[in-house]
């Protein structure tokens, strides 16, 4: 399992930058449905990186690292993939009853080393697997930090299931207290966030309702996980919501000095809240 993640991390690492907190752009996926009925149905997903939610107007989200899992845990294909100028799109064929996970998971290494009296950054796309070959001979003072990014969606056919919520123990992960496909406006929902498998206390959780283009106020909700990693949110209205959890990053040091290398993890999901 670990090996497979690392295998596509190199290509997926590009998308890491898109979701880094330094960038104003938001990485998102927009599903055609999250609550479905029927025995043989599909979900189509648009995926992009842009400021406004959910309007594809800047960059497509690369699909290299996109995967999907059926409720029984088997991996199912990402079908009809296409990447255009502003967005990517793909389908997942839903033939089982229960909750599917669709996710782009990228694990990379950030870091630096000293060579000939200068400090150099590790190039993009560095992973634990290729670290050795990316560090030139004679380099000293090698510092690395992990960067784990997860952008995922849940869609449910029939009754919601929780078989796919077993944490991997890597990066930020969502554990349902309220199932993410059982959300209704006016009701409160609780989610638990884990960082490397342990409850992630005091993490900022940003929730923004979609439809930004047609209103004046962003409507952003700034929440924080409790000591148990849990956060509660009451949905003001039905619609799609973008949820982002990112480990706080240390600021830059002296003028011009790069910020210290710190472990970072980011989580993005899109939740659909139905009308009561």
């Amino acid at each position, binding site marked *: 399992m670990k090996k497979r993640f690392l295998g596509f991390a190199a290509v997926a690492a590009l998308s890491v930058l898109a979701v880094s907190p330094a960038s104003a752009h938001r990485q998102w996926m927009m599903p055609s*449905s999250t*609550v*479905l*009925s*029927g*025995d*043989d*149905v599909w979900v189509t997903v648009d995926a992009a990186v842009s400021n406004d939610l959910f309007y594809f107007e800047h960059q497509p989200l690369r699909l290299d690292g996109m995967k999907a899992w059926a409720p029984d845990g088997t991996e199912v294909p990402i079908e009809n993939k296409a990447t255009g100028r502003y967005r990517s799109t793909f389908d997942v064929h839903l033939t089982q009853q229960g909750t599917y996970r669709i996710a782009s998971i990228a694990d990379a290494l950030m870091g630096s080393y000293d060579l000939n009296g200068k400090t150099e950054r590790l190039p993009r796309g560095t992973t634990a697997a290729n670290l050795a070959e990316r560090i030139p001979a004679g380099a000293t003072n090698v510092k690395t930090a992990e960067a784990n990014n997860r952008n995922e969606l849940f869609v449910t056919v*029939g*009754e*919601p299931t929780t078989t796919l919520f077993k944490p991997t123990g890597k990066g930020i992960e969502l554990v349902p207290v309220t199932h993410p496909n*059982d959300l*209704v406006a006016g009701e409160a929902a609780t989610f638990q966030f884990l960082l490397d498998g342990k409850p992630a206390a005091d993490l900022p959780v940003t929730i923004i309702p979609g439809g930004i283009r047609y209103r004046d106020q962003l409507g952003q909700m700034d929440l924080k996980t409790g000591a148990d990693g849990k956060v509660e949110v009451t949905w003001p209205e039905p619609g799609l919501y973008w949820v982002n959890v990112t480990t706080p990053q240390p600021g830059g040091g002296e003028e011009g000095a790069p910020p210290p290398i710190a472990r970072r993890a980011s989580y993005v999901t899109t939740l659909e809240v*139905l*009308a*009561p």
Partner: protein
Amino acid sequence: MSMPYRVLLSVGTGVFAAVPAALAAPATMDVTVTIPQLKVAEYHKPYVAIWVEKAGAPAKTVAVWYDHDMKANEGTKWLRDVRQWWRASGRSLKFPANGITGATRAPGPQKISFTRAQLGATAPGDYVLVIEAAREVGGRELLRIPFTWPAKAGAGGRAAGKTELGAVSVSFR
């Protein structure tokens, strides 16, 4: 029918003797659901779900009218649009469901009857009959009619929809 009448008479409830129908404990709920006639360019008969709620108990679906006869069970794709029912009960059912699912119905008063057992109302107490309609390329509407069991024979509750449902009424016999 004459048996319970005689039995009750023998315990001396002579007051009720004039209305023998009231003496038999009702065993059946008759429901009339009026599907409104709509003047729209594209009309499809609505999906309708009827279920029973009781505090502390799971919702019990008693009827679903949907496109039950499409090839490959394709009519199930829109069941989730009857969204409160889907969440309360529908999503845990298999379709078609014997004795519960049937074809969509045309505009006009539509009648359907349920036994007390079908309603899941075997225990005495307060219940709510919920009727929800969702129409393809149209809207959605939901009505609630509270009832208690044991029920009194005759007319029960009623409710009137404004958009996707007309008058809905229940009576007991």
